[in-house]
């Protein structure tokens, strides 16, 4: 490992969550933006799409209790502005900013100012001030600001341990989101066999890809819109940055940079679980997954990713530092 300063566990924790929350805010902006576009192309009676957006976030029950049936207005309010929804874009950005504030000395000023700009943008926007013609522009701006943060992270912060924790959080969040989108959409879209081959089918699968910014790259890779190829692309593609395989590989590399353990070995539970998942994705064929049950596979992925998340927390953020641990390191004064 480089000879840089050791990283406080608390700070590593905050960095990981900044990575996750900025990515989550970006995802919400992207998914809502794509849905707005798609609705314009679909027949008016097709209202299930807004509910699907809520389901993707995993907050179906909370939403139903507070808002009832899903509509464009209620879903945007819930996913974007609702302070009570811990996954809403506003909450994600506020939490990311709180975390950034607490590690302001670790990240670059440019990154801090960017998170702050995003915060000011969202907190100065009143939900009822957004009209049909300003909504797309708003989500586009949020996404641009999120991307600017990613760019600044890449170009103004040393690619060291703190940076790797940010990237780790981002990669885990991306893998999670892609998995969820696929799980909800695949089963929504498949039963409508009557739609197969119709323009609507094409529109909806295109929207799935667009909601992870993958439409153009899919076209280059596979051409025609084929559901199984979409699944393969989103799960297994080696090159597309939001494909689960790519995210997990990236996360694994971040973790190995952090610990200094060579790839293929592991020094802690987080590395072990992540390595296992990486090789599973590496050596599994899309056909096998589809024939033995996509939903089961995605469910399994979620469980594994949760286990990795917990292990990262235990291995790096919540180190048990009692007096005994202190006494042990007292002998070896590491720098």
């Amino acid at each position: 490992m480089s000879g840089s300063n050791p990283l406080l566990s608390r700070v590593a924790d905050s960095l990981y969550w900044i990575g996750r929350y900025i990515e989550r805010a970006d995802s919400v902006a992207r998914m809502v933006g794509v849905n707005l576009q798609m609705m314009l192309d679909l027949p008016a009676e097709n209202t299930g799409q807004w509910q699907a957006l809520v389901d993707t976030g995993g907050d179906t029950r909370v939403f139903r209790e507070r808002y009832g049936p899903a509509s464009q207005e209620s879903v945007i309010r819930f996913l974007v502005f609702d302070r009570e929804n811990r996954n809403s874009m506003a909450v994600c950005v506020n939490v990311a900013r709180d975390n950034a504030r607490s590690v302001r000395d670790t990240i670059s000023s440019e990154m801090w100012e960017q998170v702050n700009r995003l915060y000011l943008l969202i907190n100065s926007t009143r939900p009822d001030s957004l009209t049909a013609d300003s909504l797309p522009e708003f989500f586009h701006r949020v996404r641009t600001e999120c991307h600017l943060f990613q760019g600044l992270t890449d170009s103004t912060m040393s690619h060291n341990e703190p940076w790797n924790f940010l990237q780790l959080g981002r990669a885990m969040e991306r893998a999670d989101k892609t998995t969820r989108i696929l799980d909800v959409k695949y089963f929504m879209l498949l039963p409508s066999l009557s739609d197969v081959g119709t323009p609507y089918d094409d529109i909806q699968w295109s929207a799935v890809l667009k909601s992870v910014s993958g439409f153009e790259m899919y076209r280059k890779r596979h051409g025609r819109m084929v559901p199984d190829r979409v699944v393969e692309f989103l799960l297994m593609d080696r090159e597309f940055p939001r494909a689960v395989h790519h995210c997990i590989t990236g996360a694994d590399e971040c973790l190995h940079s952090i610990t200094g353990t060579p790839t293929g070995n592991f020094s802690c539970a987080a590395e072990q679980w992540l390595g296992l998942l990486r090789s599973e994705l590496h050596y599994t064929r899309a056909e096998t997954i589809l024939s033995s049950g996509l939903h089961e596979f995605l469910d399994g992925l979620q469980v594994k990713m949760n286990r990795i998340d917990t292990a990262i927390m235990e291995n790096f953020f919540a180190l048990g530092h009692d007096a005994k641990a202190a006494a042990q390191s007292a002998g070896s004064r590491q720098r």
Partner: protein
Amino acid sequence: MRFSSYQTDGFYDEMFQTDDVPRPQARLLLETIQSLSDGQLLRSKVAAERLLLQMGITFNVYADSAGTERIFPFDLVPRIIASEEWTWIERGLEQRIHALNEFIDDIYHDQKILKDGVIPAEVVLSAASYRPQCQGLDPPRRIWCHIAGIDLVRDGNGQIYVLEDNLRVPSGVSYVLENREVLKRTFPQVFEGLSIRPVNQYPSRLLEMLQTLAPAGASDARAVVLTPGVYNSAYFEHSFLAQQMGLQLVEGRDLVVSGGVVYMRTTRGLQRVDVIYRRIDDDFLDPETFRADSLLGVPGLMAAYRAGGVALANAPGNGVADDKVIYAYVPAIVRYYEGAEPILHNVPTYLCWKDSDRSYVLENLDKLVVKAANESGGYGMLVGPASTRDEQRAFAAKIEAHPRNYIAQPTLSLSRVPTIIDDHFEGRHVDLRPYVLYGKDIYVLPGGLTRVALRKGSLVVNSSQGGGSKDTWVLAKPLNGSSLPAEATR
């Protein structure tokens, strides 16, 4: 905006000798401002405020609803100090800090000054900021006040006085650096033709000072900045200074003490810490030594400090020298330790524990400023001329109940600086807080923080009470044209 209708209203004005005659050090700046096109100044003002908000240079308001942040109002018109006057202030501050440090070291060791009867022992030992736990402690280099912020004011005659010595955890220096930065970014025209002493070397000086405190033998000593956390009103400053020095910003929960050594909790286990620039008050520093209910501090920190395992800046216990009753004795303290007359003057101070002083204070509450001995931030204070009969009666009762806790001073007519109010200039009262570092030697940051009372007629400059700030310029060259040595002008 023009100064043609500007009025000094009989106050000492830092920029004008009379309503239409500028002071020599301000002439060029005033000409530049006058030559701006209409609206330029207000546009720069809006730009500066937006910049502060975007940079997230905000402070938390405690009394307000959770999470409310405000920018510290910044006025574009700088305050200018002539280089000759600054040289004199600098010498006065060096002398004062040196003497105060000797005093603190004496109090926690032999107490010669008390034995010699210069200050009554009970005055010192009854100070709320006196820490018996620090008796006999030998901090590195026997320095107790590493970072000080000394509040200066100028009265109607142009005389400069020391108003308060802030030795414990003085704040505000980040605003000095950021104000300069914001002014350079939003209003660069005003710097033209002037040679102003820079301020951005402060973090390097601070870092250098902290590193000199490391226990002997630690060649690669690690210093950290200890903050109470993001909800502290000065959190921005803590993170800013840590970032500028490249040090880790830590909270109490990040640190653990074992075997007389302080460690921080990292992703790679515990790592030793050698020097702590702590921005937590003594009371909350270590629940084992001071307040047991503190959740911000580090249990066992004082024991490690006492054993020489870690250095703390500022040294715990140094607040004994900025108690407002002891303040009245600082001229005597300077004479005692320095063998010289104090360069900087004290404001005449009445001590309510003295019967004669107390009866004078009680009879003249409507004319005096009364302060609690151990408060700061403009709290626990009565400004006589601005107070009601009821407020005076309430204060009289407090003074009678705890005479040791109160001092009184004549109400000074603080100097003013032109300030943008709506669309014109008006004079507003200011103070000045220069920052002094004491390590291998004593260093004074040129200028300091000029705080301005934005409310008309107000004398209270604290940010919690409607205060703002200004950039403070120390001119690098004397006005007669001969330049200072290269060191000072770089």
